[in-house]
């Protein structure tokens, strides 16, 4: 394993120490329990929006803390859900009296830890609504399983819910925006290489030099199938087809097209993927009205990409365009 780190066990703490000195204007970092919180939190009368999850997906979530997006983010160990005390303290720190929205990715660990935190926060008189994102069409959905993983849609949900909260909408209204993203967003990812978790020290999985994994999770969870590496155009088709089918997206739908790097795939390749994804969307009668292209929900240094498509309506468009000022996403200010 080659990484720019000191001791594997110190990775998250030292990253947070870096954030402290890098962005004091934007965020504060609370240690023990760990969370990143807006420098100006709590904001009176504003719904607090928080998220959290294992580290290793940066800029998600800590990089999305700031005006118009998250009020706080709780980083766990690398690829490990954070603990309830983190979410409890973060919830308290961002509570401006209008309640707090928890945006939770659908992983058993995330859900259980967030649930316990929500219970504890409610016991302290804070109104909490939790919405679970589960947009990964690579996973077979079923009532009898843990369901689908939460992936790319989470970033989009954080953006639009943060905007809605900034507009001083009520907790239920902000939650409704999140439910809309949950209902209208679909994703699928693939990997060319594995990532290496620092405290493990070797790649999570072995992928021969000529193979790729389709339907991979953002923690290196094995995907749907493994096969010989294909061309960018063929890969894009393999990702787009199940996404379009699943919603189902309809002719004439306006969509946001999000091509994400798993970390190790550079922009030059993302644009090649975007080019084809755009073409496929167009051929399917979808109108791409917004996009996002880059490493926004990553899996350490894994090479590969994911595609997320979110159906848009006027309100989502306005919320998407609303000013945002975070390390990871910034416009309008």
């Amino acid at each position, binding site marked *: 394993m080659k990484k720019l780190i000191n001791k594997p*066990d110190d990775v998250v703490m030292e990253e947070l120490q870096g954030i402290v000195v890098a962005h004091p204007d934007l965020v504060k970092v609370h240690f023990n*329990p760990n969370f990143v919180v807006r420098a100006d939190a709590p904001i009176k009368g504003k719904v607090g929006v928080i998220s959290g999850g*294992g580290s290793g997906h940066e800029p998600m979530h800590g990089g999305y803390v700031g005006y118009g997006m998250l009020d706080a983010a709780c980083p*766990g*160990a*690398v*690829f*490990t*859900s*954070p*603990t*309830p*005390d983190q979410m409890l303290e973060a919830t308290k720190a961002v509570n401006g009296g209008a309640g707090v929205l928890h945006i939770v990715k659908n*992983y*058993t*660990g995330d859900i*259980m*830890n967030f*649930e*316990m935190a929500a219970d504890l926060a409610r016991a302290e008189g804070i109104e909490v609504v939790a919405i679970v994102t589960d947009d990964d069409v*690579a*996973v*077979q959905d079923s009532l*009898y*399983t*843990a369901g689908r*993983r939460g992936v790319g849609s989470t970033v989009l949900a954080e953006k639009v819910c943060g905007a809605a909260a900034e507009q001083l909408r009520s907790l239920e209204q902000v939650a409704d925006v999140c439910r809309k993203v949950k209902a209208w967003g679909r994703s699928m990812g693939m990997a060319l290489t594995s990532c290496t*978790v620092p*405290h*493990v020290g070797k790649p*999570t*999985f072995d992928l021969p030099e000529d193979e790729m994994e389709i339907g991979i*999770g953002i*923690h*290196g*969870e*094995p995907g749907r199938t493994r096969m010989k590496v294909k061309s960018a155009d063929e890969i894009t088709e393999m990702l787009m087809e199940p996404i379009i089918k699943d919603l189902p997206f309809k002719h004439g739908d306006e969509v946001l097209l999000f091509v994400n790097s798993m970390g190790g795939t550079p922009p030059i390749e993302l644009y090649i993927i975007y080019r084809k994804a755009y073409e496929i969307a167009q051929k399917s009668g979808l109108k791409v009205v917004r996009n996002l292209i880059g490493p926004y929900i990553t899996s350490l240094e894994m090479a590969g990409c994911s595609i997320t498509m979110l159906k848009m309506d006027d309100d989502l468009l306005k919320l998407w365009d609303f000013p945002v000022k975070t390390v990871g996403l910034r416009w309008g200010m």
Partner: protein
Amino acid sequence: MSINRDEALEWIKACVEILGENRDYLTQLDAAIGDADHGANMDRGFKAVMGKIPEMSDKDIGTIFKTVGMTLLSTVGGAGGPLYGTFFIQAGMKTAGKMELSLEDWTSAMDAALSGIVMRGKAELGDKTMVDALTPALNALKQAMTDDLPLNQALKNSAEAAREGMVGTIPLVARKGRASYLGERSAGHQDPGATSSYLILKTAADTWSNS
């Protein structure tokens, strides 16, 4: 034929050691069908528990178990954190104030602990989770009570039942937790959580083999 406060603490310390030793093993199991962190998570949690030993050493068994549970809850993370946290907290509530545990006490503590896990995780038997190790272990304890076995034999039987339950997860297709994303591809691998559960119960049987 009982476990006293110091022995309870011995078990916890032994768990710290065993989970440290099995860190890589559990991580490997988790790499195959999960995300390669179960070993590191459990080890981090029990290392934190180790730091709490001094403050626990003059407490009753219920407080000890509850402290372990709270510590795991705030240090393990992932699925294991809330599940093992709940496990020990529930066991602690059932043994509140006690300085000594009989087979009955231990059995009812384990019953509460397992119920807590099931309530939290909603897994059923056969879902390929720690529940598949813990359920037969609890049943073995209940059987031992019916059969009037001595405590140490009961613990031995319960550890053996956990081992069988753990091995029994190998052919299963996961329906809960991260392994469930794999569908059919999860079959053929032993569940990491069932394995850590077995290790914890085996450690109890070993630590308390003279009880």
